[in-house]
């Protein structure tokens, strides 16, 4: 499988004293959906801007489809849906699509892009009358109108309702089926987990595959036991000394690799209610990892 994007030893910082990206190496394979996770300010958008050639790294090499990211070749083969404030207010959706389509030598047929991004219902509406979700769908259509090989989606589902988000997911999966490379940043971990072949975390200036993070590998297989109990916390801690227990009011949460003995003790020794046992989700594992990182 060929690589779509190669970043080697990238360093970048807005201030010399505080490097945002430090020795970052990353290779993204073609035809896959990659998701980048990271806290606010971790440098996700900066990283995307470097891949788009809008920011030059202090040092390191960037190759997109084997070319420099700001080359005309990349402009033709890469589509980007960025976080934008707005477009000219009085232009209709169809006029935007026709204009951006005219920039490309081999654009996606208009009907296809309209149907893929579900723009049918508001083609004749001007930008100022669109809802947040409709604007996002228009931005996505503009990103995809040139039939690109690589598509950057910077937090694409912000402002979308549940139905629009589902439609967006379908569109992203359709792109994957067409062997497009998609790079997605998102705050919705469920979205990343559902769509992405590869989950990357940007932390401390470096990009790591989520499954390669040892702390996460330790946390991820755990089960989560939730229950309510009117006994004081200290009583439960005495009874279950080796357990990772957290409490909020009378709601208790236990993270464990071996739920069976704990459940047995809970059910036989204590008066517990609303007992729930679930595998720990990626979101919880990730948040737990990030919180530990901050601690």
């Amino acid at each position, binding site marked *: 499988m060929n690589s779509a994007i190669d970043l080697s030893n990238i360093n970048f910082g807005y201030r010399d004293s505080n490097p945002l990206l430090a020795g970052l190496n990353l290779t993204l394979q073609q035809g896959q959906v990659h998701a980048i996770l990271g806290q606010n300010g971790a440098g996700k958008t900066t990283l995307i801007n470097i891949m*788009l050639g*809008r920011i030059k790294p202090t040092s390191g090499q960037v190759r997109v489809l084997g070319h420099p990211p700001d080359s*005309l070749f990349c*402009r*033709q083969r*890469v589509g*980007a849906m*960025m*976080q*934008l*404030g*707005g*477009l*000219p*207010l*009085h*232009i209709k959706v169809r*006029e*935007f699509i*026709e*204009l*951006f389509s*005219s*920039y*490309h*030598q081999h654009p996606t047929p208009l009907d296809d892009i309209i149907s893929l991004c579900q723009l049918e219902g508001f083609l004749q509406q*001007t930008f100022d009358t669109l809802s947040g979700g409709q604007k996002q769908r228009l931005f996505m259509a*503009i990103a995809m109108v*040139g039939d690109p090989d690589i598509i950057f989606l910077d937090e694409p589902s912000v402002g979308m309702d549940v139905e629009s988000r589902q439609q967006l997911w379908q569109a992203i999966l359709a792109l994957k089926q067409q062997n497009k490379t998609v790079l997605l940043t998102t705050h919705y971990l469920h979205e990343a987990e559902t769509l992405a072949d590869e989950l990357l975390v940007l932390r401390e200036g470096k990009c790591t595959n989520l499954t390669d993070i040892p702390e996460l590998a330790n946390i991820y297989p755990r089960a989560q036991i939730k229950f309510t109990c009117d006994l004081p916390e200290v009583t439960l801690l005495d009874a279950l000394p080796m357990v990772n227990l957290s409490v909020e009011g009378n709601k208790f949460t236990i993270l464990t690799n071996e739920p069976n003995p704990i459940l047995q003790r809970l059910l036989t020794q204590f008066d517990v209610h609303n007992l729930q046992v679930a595998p720990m989700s990626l979101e919880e594992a990730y948040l737990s990892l990030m919180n530990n990182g901050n601690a």
Partner: protein
Amino acid sequence: MMNTTSFLLESKVELLSIFRSKGFVIPASVFPCLFYLFFGIMFSHDDSHNYMFINYLIFGMISPALFSFGVNVAIEKQNGWLVLKQLSPVSAYQYLFAKCVSASVFSLIVACLMSMLALFSGVSLALEQFLIIVLIALLGTFPLCLLGLVIGLCVSAKAAPAVVNLVYLPLSLLSGLWLPITLFPEPMQWFAWLLPTFHISQLALGVIDAALGFAIYYHLSIFTLQTCLLCFFAHTKFKQA
């Protein structure tokens, strides 16, 4: 990449964007006309109707160039429209030339409105003279487009209207577009040579033999030099944007 269809679509979008904003178009076209009516017609004497008309015509026609570039580019830079253009394979010049087209159309509309007022104010120009003057004023909008572009790229969307006004109004006054330049003290008359609008005015006034009397090539060469300098600044700023 730039092709004819794409350029026409770009110009269409620019024109629609301006002319669908009625809150911008109506005041922006009525303001210079009212200015001409109050100061250019009411205070005009029998022998100065043509002189006033030519200067106020230039004053009116440079306004869309300065505002369309200065204010709109600042807004488009801030909201991300410029980013979308930079990420697409289209040449930056297509976007800028399309803006020139829309500013020129707007300038011609202002020229038509002012000419209608001029019909009732004693202006007496032959059709050829009138057309040449409009053409000179139209060509004269080009450096103002570049100046507007530099302003739009340098300041925020919020500051842009104020900064453009701060440039537009003194520029007009100091170039002699409101009052004859000969009424100013001599140092100010020489200062006017630094302003492209002064040279446009002198070239246009030359059509009715009302210029100060310097050779045309002086004005033409300085005007060209100023345009090239602005072009250089605008190009540098645009690459950094």
